[in-house]
């Protein structure tokens, strides 16, 4: 139970970073912290007491396996998170070329 609460606290740490930080790259890193806490929560869901890694060994088949479905879901979600972070970094680089600064208080061209 304590591990799930720690995952949620990590999520809140990431969200605090997104809200408070002024540098663009630090906002992107805080987003990555948020997504990693979600993956950790997902992978911890499948744990069954006394289970081993879910790889079938034809020699001795009769064991209790840990749930393999959340592991497959987390693998897919990691790749999706990679694509999102890469796109965010590309936009940040181009923003630096146009505005000349990384500070988010200077980038307010669209108002109203």
């Amino acid at each position: 139970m304590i591990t799930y609460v720690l995952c949620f606290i990590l999520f809140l740490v990431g969200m605090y970073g997104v809200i408070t930080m002024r540098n663009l790259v630090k906002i992107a890193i805080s987003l990555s912290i948020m997504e990693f806490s979600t993956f950790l929560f997902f992978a911890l869901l499948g744990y069954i007491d006394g289970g081993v890694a879910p790889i079938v060994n034809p020699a001795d088949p009769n064991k209790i396996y840990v749930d393999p479905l959340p592991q497959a879901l987390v693998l897919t979600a990691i790749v999706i998170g990679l694509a999102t972070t890469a796109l965010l970094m590309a936009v940040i680089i181009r923003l630096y070329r146009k505005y000349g600064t990384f500070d988010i208080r200077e980038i307010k061209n669209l108002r109203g």
Partner: protein
Amino acid sequence: MNPLIPLFVVTPLAATFLIMIVGRFVKEFNKYYTSLTLLFLVVMSFWCLIHTGGNVFVYKVGGWQPVNKIPIGIYMVLDGFSAIVVCIINLIGFLVTIYSISYIKRYTSENYFYALFCLMIAGMNGVVLSGDLFNIFVFLEISVISAYSLVAFGVEKNELEASFKYQVLGSIASFLILFGIGFIYWKTKTLNIADIKAAFSTGYDKSFYIFTQLLILCGFGLKAAIIPFHAWLPDAHSSAPSPISAMLSGVFIKAVGIYVIIRLFFNMFVITESMAILITTLGTLSMVIGVFLAIGQWDIKRLLAYHSISQMGYVILSVGIGMILVSRGVRQEVAALAIAGGIFHLINHAAFKGLLFLNAGAIEYTIGTRNLKEMGGLAKSMPATSATSFVASMSISGIPPFNGFFSKLIIIIAAIMARFYLLAALAVIVSIITLASFLKFQRYAFYDKSEKNKIQKAKEVPYPMIFSMIVLSIICLLLSLLVLPVVRDAVLTPAIDILMDPLKYSSQIIGL
């Protein structure tokens, strides 16, 4: 019928990568191939709409049959409600492709535009047609990543800033959705929507249930731009290129936002009264605050983006009224009327908001500015644009005989019959303020007589753009026929039956 369902996703996905290879060597390949693919998808989606009726078609990916009545494998489900939204996505996508044949010549690298556009269509089709909770998340991410890139397509200062804001807020929403999916998997040990409904019907833990519903509502509410989560919408929809604005505002916030909220709350969760009252309150706030923020705008596309928030508030208001009545268990026919009004307004809004954004793009194409104070007297030099813009403005304000009148009438009648008099009065007031705002748009853009230098050079836009705008305005007129009983029973009644009956969706899927 069953094995044709994945074609909606596989065809645009193959088209994306074919365009990226062949488009480098053959010059004109990308436009014609995209138009052909989308034409094929439009024909197939209308065929599916006619043949679906009240049945539910299920396709199991990979052919994995259920074991001991427990569904393993990923299901793709096509029923009455999905068929309507698939038709909207593909039809508006086809018309926007024809429009962008001449609009995108302004930008470099057209190749990537058509590839990303096909990928967005594939993602949206996947969200609408999926019957499995994590599959919705994966296709949601595919379509949303292509939307982020398309908003930042012309790399100027405004577009990059709008895309950055959209990305940060959209990523937070995606992680909230993933957290919600994790909670649901923890308690029910399955990911199939019909199976989760069966698991929730037996019994659930109350505090965890409210937390999960709030997580899913916040996540998908941000994608649908309901009022506390609307901050990205004016920047993103006004800075994107005009065909992409029409696609985003007309289709995207419906297919990945409102469709998923309606599907999950009716067919997966057991509706409680407190959550229904919360959703109705959010819809009312969106409706009122959206239109008040829209009055003072002088930029055309920002004005239209704020009106999108208000009209989506109408849809959520009427669906919320239906949810309150279903959860109390009384007056089922009034609930059916409210949900019918909501879905009808969804279809109408796709048509007239897409047309309005295409008109704004045509004005920007000829004159080069988006500020209403610098325009005037365009009705003589751009006859097709001003006529279609008049049709769309009258539709959105709710003037008979256009389609907006009938859907707003059904929503107001349903609110009065359910004895929510305050909501009906607010709906009428918001409609009047919308009419005022669009009269201002028409006067400043088209009918004001003034001699400004830029206006002398205005001439009509090229033929592909006129074709799309005229077809959309004819559709606006034809959609008002949906209120007749014959057409209504063929199109809207199957959707309402699937949503309101608590057992029909899950029994037809698990029994197969």
